[in-house]
C-alpha cells in the first residue's frame, strides 16, 4: 500500500526523523487556514501517489495569503499523470544548501533490505543509477543483525558526504531503517534529503510503501487507505474479499488460483481478446463467492463477455456449477458467459450447467477452446 507524501512524513515524525512542519488540507479554505498557521513563505504541495509533481505544477511556494489561495485553487482538482489531486499538504518553506537521496528497499532478490545513499538528490534516481551508478552507495543489511552504525558510516563515506555530516546522516539512516522495520515497509524513500544552511538534515519528501500482509498488526496505518482514489470495481472486490485487478479490455475473467487466472488472461490475449480484469475467486466454490465475483465483473460497463475458468482440484466442478446457477439467479448477468470446467467432477459440472439452460451460458472443456469462444462472443459473433 502506497502512502501520500504527508502520510509518510507523519510516519517519519513518529520515528524522530526531522521533517518540515506541515498541515494537510482538502479545501481551499482549509489550505488558507493551514498557511496562516504555518506562516509565509509556505509551500503548497499536491498529494498524489505519482512522481514528477513539481514539473507538473503541483508544488508552488506562496509568499502571502493571496498566493496561497491562488495556488490552492489551481492545484486542487488538477490532473497529474492521470491522478486527480484531492488533497494538499501546506508546509513551511525550507532553506536548502544541498540535496541528497536516501532509501531503503525490500530487495526480494537479495532477500535483505537494501540501503541506498547518494549526494545527487532531487533528481530522478533511476536516471542517476543509469548514468552514474557509482554516485549511489549501497549496502544490504543482515535481517537478523539489523543496520549497524559502522554500516551507516561506511555508506556516508562512500557516498562522499561532508565530514561534519557523517554522523547526522548516519543517524538519519538509522532512523529510516527503524521506520522501515517498525512499520513493516517495503520501501521508504526520501528524495531529497536536504541539508539546511545550519547544517541540519531533514526529509523534504517521502515515498513509503507498506506491506499489505502486515497491516493487521498496524491499526493506525491500515486507516490510511483512501477509498476515494480506488477504482470502484477494485473497491467493491476488496470489500467482498476478492482479489481483483482492473484492466483496459472488454472480456471479464475469473478463475481459481492466481497463476491460472494470469495464464487465462494470456491465453485470451493470444486469441485476440482484451481482458477487462484479473479476478481470483480463490479455492472456494461457494455460491456466495461466485455471486460476488459475477457482480463485481459485470459492474464494469465495458465488459461484453465473461470467461469463467475453473480447474477443479479440491474444489469440485459440480459444486461450482451449482454455485453458478445460484449466482445467475441473484446477479442476473446480461452478457454472455463461457464456463470452462475441468478437473474433479467436470463432466457432472458441465451436465448440471447444460440442464440449467442459463441465458447466454456456454460451456467448454479446455482453456484454449473457452478463450476462443469468449473472444468471438465479445466481438458479437455467435459460437
Amino acid at each position, binding site marked *: 500500500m502506497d502512502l501520500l507524501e504527508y502520510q509518510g512524513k507523519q510516519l517519519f515524525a513518529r520515528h524522530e526523523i526531522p521533517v518540515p512542519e506541515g498541515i494537510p488540507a482538502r479545501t481551499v479554505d482549509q489550505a488558507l487556514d493551514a498557511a496562516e498557521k504555518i506562516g509565509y513563505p509556505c509551500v503548497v504541495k499536491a498529494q498524489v501517489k505519482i512522481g514528477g509533481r513539481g514539473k507538473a505544477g503541483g508544488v508552488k511556494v506562496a509568499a502571502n495569503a493571496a498566493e496561497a489561495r491562488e495556488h490552492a485553487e489551481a492545484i486542487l482538482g488538477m490532473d497529474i499523470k492521470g491522478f486527480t489531486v484531492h488533497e494538499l499538504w501546506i508546509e513551511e518553506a525550507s532553506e536548502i544548501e544541498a540535496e541528497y537521496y536516501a532509501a531503503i528497499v*525490500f530487495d526480494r532478490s537479495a532477500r535483505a533490505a537494501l540501503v541506498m545513499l547518494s549526494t545527487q538528490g532531487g533528481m530522478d534516481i*533511476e536516471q542517476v543509477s543509469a548514468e552514474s551508478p557509482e554516485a549511489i552507495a549501497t549496502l544490504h543489511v543482515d535481517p537478523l543483525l539489523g543496520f549497524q552504525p559502522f554500516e551507516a558510516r561506511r555508506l556516508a563515506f562512500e557516498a562522499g558526504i561532508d565530514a561534519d555530516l557523517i554522523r547526522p546522516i548516519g543517524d538519519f539512516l538509522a532512523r529510516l531503517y527503524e521506520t522501515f522495520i517498525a512499520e*513493516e515497509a517495503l520501501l521508504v524513500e526520501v528524495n531529497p534529503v536536504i541539508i539546511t544552511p545550519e547544517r541540519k538534515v531533514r526529509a523534504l519528501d517521502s515515498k513509503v510503501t507498506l506491506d499489505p*500482509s502486515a497491516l493487521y498488526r498496524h491499526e493506525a496505518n491500515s486507516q490510511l487507505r483512501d477509498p476515494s482514489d480506488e477504482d470502484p470495481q477494485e473497491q467493491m472486490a476488496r470489500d467482498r474479499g476478492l482479489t481483483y485487478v482492473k484492466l483496459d479490455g472488454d472480456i471479464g475473467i475469473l478463475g481459481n488460483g492466481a*497463476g491460472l487466472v*494470469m495464464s487465462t488472461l494470456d*491465453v485470451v490475449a493470444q486469441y485476440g481478446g482484451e481482458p477487462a480484469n484479473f479476478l481470483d475467486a480463490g479455492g472456494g466454490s461457494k455460491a456466495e463467492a461466485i455471486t460476488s465475483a459475477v457482480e463485481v465483473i459485470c459492474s464494469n460497463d465495458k465488459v461484453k463477455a465473461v470467461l469463467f475458468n475453473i480447474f477443479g*482440484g479440491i474444489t469440485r466442478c459440480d459444486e461450482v456449477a451449482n454455485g453458478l446457477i445460484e449466482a445467475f439467479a441473484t446477479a442476473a448477468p446480461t452478457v454472455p458467459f463461457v464456463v470452462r470446467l475441468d478437473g474433479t467432477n467436470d463432466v457432472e459440472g458441465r451436465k448440471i450447467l447444460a440442464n440449467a439452460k442459463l441465458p447466454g451460458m456456454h460451456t467448454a472443456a479446455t482453456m*484454449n477452446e473457452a478463450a476462443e469462444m469468449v473472444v468471438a462472443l465479445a466481438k458479437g459473433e455467435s459460437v
Partner: protein
Amino acid sequence: MSVLVGTDTRLCVAGITGSEGRFHTLNNRAYGTNVVSGVTPGKGGQDVEGIPVFNTFHAAAEQSGANTAMIFVPPPFAADSILEAADAGIETIIAITEGIPAHDELRVYAQIKRTPGVRLIGPNCPGVLSPGKANVGIIPASFFKEGNIGVMSRSGTLTYQIGNELAGQGFGNSSIVGLGGDPIPGTSFIDVLEMFENDDQTELIVMSGEIGGDAEELAAEYIGENVTKPVVGYIAGFTAPPGKTMGHAGAIVSGSKGTAAAKAEALEAKGVRVGRTPTQVAQIAVEILGG
C-alpha cells in the same frame, strides 16, 4: 526416486486440529503418506483420528520421529511455527500458509539459511507430491501418476492445469514441487533443478514461473551451466500491467523488472523451450520425450 517427499517422509502437521489442517492431513494420510504426528500448543496428548498431537515440534520430533513438517497455521503465527520446526531440527518444512508478512519471511529465510540441514518449501505453496509415494500439502493427487517428469511451479492451480495436460499426453511425474507465490520463497527453482538433475527417475523438468522477481532469470543461468536434462518452461503474466500485484504477493512487475517477456527470453537464450499455453508445454514434452 523422487525429491523432497517420498517413502522416507515422516510427517508432522502444525495446525492439525484446525478444520483445513485436519482435512488435508487426513487426505495426505489416505494417499499413503506416513503422518506420524501433529503440533498444536495446548492440545498435546489429544489425537486426530489416531494421529498423536504434541505441544511442541521438539516433542513431536523426539517422540514421533518426524522429519518433515507441514505448516497449516494462520499468517500471524506461521513464521513462529516455521522457526520452531527448524529449531527442533525438522529437515523439510513445507509451509502452505498464505499471507505471511514480508518482514517475517525475511527473518525466517535468514534463520533457515544459517541452520544446516533444514530446508523450507513455500510459504504460500500447495506442497509437494511424489506420485505413488507421498503427498504433503493440498495438491489433488488423483490427477497425477508416477512417471519421469519433474514439475516445479510458483502457482498451485496452474501446476494442476499443466500436470493435467501432461497426464493427457500419457506422462506421469517423479515429483511436483510447489515453490509458492510469495516474494521470498524458502526454496528456489535452482535448488529444485539441482535435485531433479540428480534424481534418477526424472528425465525432463517442467518449470512454471510467473511475473515478479528474478528467480526465472537466475534459473536460466543455472540451467545453462549445470543442467543436462531437458527443461520446458512456462511463464504466466504476459498481459499483467506494471505495478499491480496479480493475486500472489510476489507476482508484480516493478517498473520494467520482472516481466514475463524478459523471463521467457532469458530461458530461451539458454535453450529452454517455453510453451505459450499450458497445452503447448505438454506438446513440447511430447516432442522431446516421444509420446
